[in-house]
């Protein structure tokens, strides 16, 4: 492992890669601060730029964007009570009241230190957990993988869209349907091509991500008449106050950070759960841990109340990389985009990744840590100025997002058809968003579609067409029971539970 860490450090600490982390963190912070534009959009917009890079450099850039976007989301939560991403909603509970009390600088510092500490502790967990889990996952067979993928999709549907489980499941099916277009990987038989040669190779992952996130988010902003940059214009440089923390505040953070890191990491590893649940869970648990006196301050500017969700959401980000790097199965929409990018580089993540491509495996882990340091050193003092950059009018921001999206596809194929298809998918996604159909399950399903079919094929061929493979192995059986439990629980909760 030491050797791996050194390889990772060597790659991550090259001048080029450090610059990439810095650019990633900076760009991610800017995009993450805009309410409505989250890490998935930020990463999607970066994909075309990574085409010309080595896989490790491209992934390092995307990891930086991911962390930057989460940090940016916290900033808008604290300063203007408008969380950039769902994972930072809990941050606003105590962050915004602090800002209103004239302690915005302090709140930003608490958020930054907590994010840094949470991310660092989780990166250490990841360092030890990933190789061990990789070894364990070598024992997994096709039925287990098939089951795990269904579990991931079901869990993302259950958690990413609370109260909209059936809508999310429809999105899962739609994502899988889109993934089935093109030639069958084994027999080369064309499917749903309708004699159109442009569809023979299937629909590009980048196209779907750009259409359902970057482009449809931009169109949604115009359609709804909202202005995400309005928030940034309210930020006043003079009202931030000091970023220095006193002894008492530091002491409170020291007790909160370890327990919230553990909660965040564990929740992050679970498929579908992610930073939103981690931050709410950590906030709720912290409220139970603190003394009655501090409990009264929750919701009114508590240091513990701000530190807990910030620590947990960053720890969850690191945790979400565990299933991606060890099993090759993303547990969230954001890591699904990362998986798509990895596949685009010709790399198949999974238990053998850290043996076949150790420089990628370790450099991603190490760059996460470097990303945290950069966020702390560079972004914290620069936040007021970054916020000013954001005061770019909507009339400029939206066309630029659309331009980046179209450019991404143009660079890939130099084909008009892909642009039309992307516009078509974006229009449909905009309407679906309007009626609260969640997009992350669609992306996750689209990315997993090919792998799912492959594992189902193997399982059915081995069991000679019998579906008994779903319960033959104890591990597969456990996974299937968990899936059934989630499905019935969600349907019961949504339709039959008396309020």
């Amino acid at each position, binding site marked *: 492992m030491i050797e791996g860490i050194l390889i990772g450090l060597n790659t991550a600490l090259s001048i080029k890669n450090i610059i990439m982390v810095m650019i990633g963190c900076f760009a991610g912070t800017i995009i993450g601060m805009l309410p409505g534009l989250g890490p998935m959009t930020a990463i999607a917009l970066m994909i075309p730029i990574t085409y010309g890079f080595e896989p490790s450099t491209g992934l390092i850039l995307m990891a930086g964007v991911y962390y930057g976007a989460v940090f940016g989301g916290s900033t808008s939560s604290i300063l203007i009570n408008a969380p950039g991403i769902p994972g930072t909603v809990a941050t606003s509970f105590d962050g915004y009241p602090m800002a209103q009390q004239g302690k915005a600088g302090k709140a930003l510092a608490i958020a930054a230190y907590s994010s840094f500490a949470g991310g660092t502790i989780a990166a250490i967990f990841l360092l030890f957990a990933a190789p061990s889990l990789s070894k364990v996952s070598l024992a997994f067979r096709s039925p287990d993988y098939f089951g795990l993928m269904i579990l991931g999709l079901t869990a993302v549907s259950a958690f990413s869209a609370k109260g909209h489980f*059936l809508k999310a499941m429809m999105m899962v099916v739609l994502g899988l349907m889109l993934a089935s277009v093109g030639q069958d990987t084994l027999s080369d038989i064309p499917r749903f091509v309708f004699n159109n040669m442009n569809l023979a190779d299937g629909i590009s992952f980048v196209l779907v991500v750009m259409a359902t996130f970057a482009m449809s988010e931009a169109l949604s902003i*115009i359609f709804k008449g909202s202005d995400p940059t309005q928030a940034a214009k309210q930020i006043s440089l003079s009202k931030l106050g000091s970023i220095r923390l006193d002894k008492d505040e530091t002491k409170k953070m020291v007790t909160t950070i370890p327990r919230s890191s553990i909660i965040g990491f564990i929740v992050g590893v679970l498929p579908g759960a992610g930073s939103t649940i981690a931050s709410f869970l950590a906030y709720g648990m912290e409220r139970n841990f603190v003394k009655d006196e501090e409990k009264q301050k929750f919701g009114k500017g508590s240091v513990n109340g701000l530190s807990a969700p910030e620590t947990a959401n960053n720890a969850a980000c690191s945790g979400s990389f565990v299933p991606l790097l060890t099993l090759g199965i993303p547990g969230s929409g954001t890591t699904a985009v990362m998986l798509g990018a990895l596949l685009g580089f010709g790399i198949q993540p999974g238990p053998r990744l850290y043996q076949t491509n150790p420089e990628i495996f370790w450099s991603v882990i190490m760059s996460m840590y470097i990303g945290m340091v950069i966020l702390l050193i560079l972004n914290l003092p620069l936040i007021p100025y970054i916020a000013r950059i954001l005061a770019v009018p909507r009339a400029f921001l939206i066309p630029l997002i659309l331009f980046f999206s179209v450019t991404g596809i143009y660079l890939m194929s130099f084909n008009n058809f892909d642009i039309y298809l992307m516009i078509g998918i974006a229009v449909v996604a905009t309407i679906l968003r309007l009626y609260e159909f969640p997009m992350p399950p669609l992306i996750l399903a689209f990315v997993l579609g090919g792998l799912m079919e492959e594992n189902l094929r193997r399982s059915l061929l081995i069991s000679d067409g019998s579906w008994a493979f779903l319960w033959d192995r104890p591990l597969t059986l456990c996974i299937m029971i968990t899936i059934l439990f989630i499905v019935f629980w969600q349907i019961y909760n949504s339709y039959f539970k008396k309020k």
Partner: protein
Amino acid sequence: MQISPVKIISLLFFVFSGFYLYHAYQIRVFAFDENAPFNAKTFPILLGYAGIFFSGLYIALPEKRPANVNLSVLDYKRTITLVILMIIYGVTILKAGYFLSTSIFLVLSYITLGEKRWFWVFTLSFPFVAIFMFLLHGLLDIYLRDPLLKYLGIIG
């Protein structure tokens, strides 16, 4: 009786799944693969049924949390104009070249969204695209197809 828009979307998805299922059954597989436990149409057929199941369930079950969308406040005009501009951008990008079509798309989009500061409209279109192209093509060595600039001898 008023039908909720989400139910209508679910109904459309139900029909789409039926269409998808029909075409899944039409996929031609090799003769030796016809009775195999798994062939090219197995997975799509399962997906078709899954789509029908979930959309059917949504249509059949009562809606507990209907989406509340005020259609009268939506900005149809600007959204449709932007979509049309994107389609035109898609049509012209190969013929007129990346630089010209992108710059014109940006200018028209800024104007559509109500921008009137001509200095910024110009700066964030033609020079911005030129710098972006230089970064991609010149520095990152990412190939950018632009027949017009190639004809003019600006790029190789």
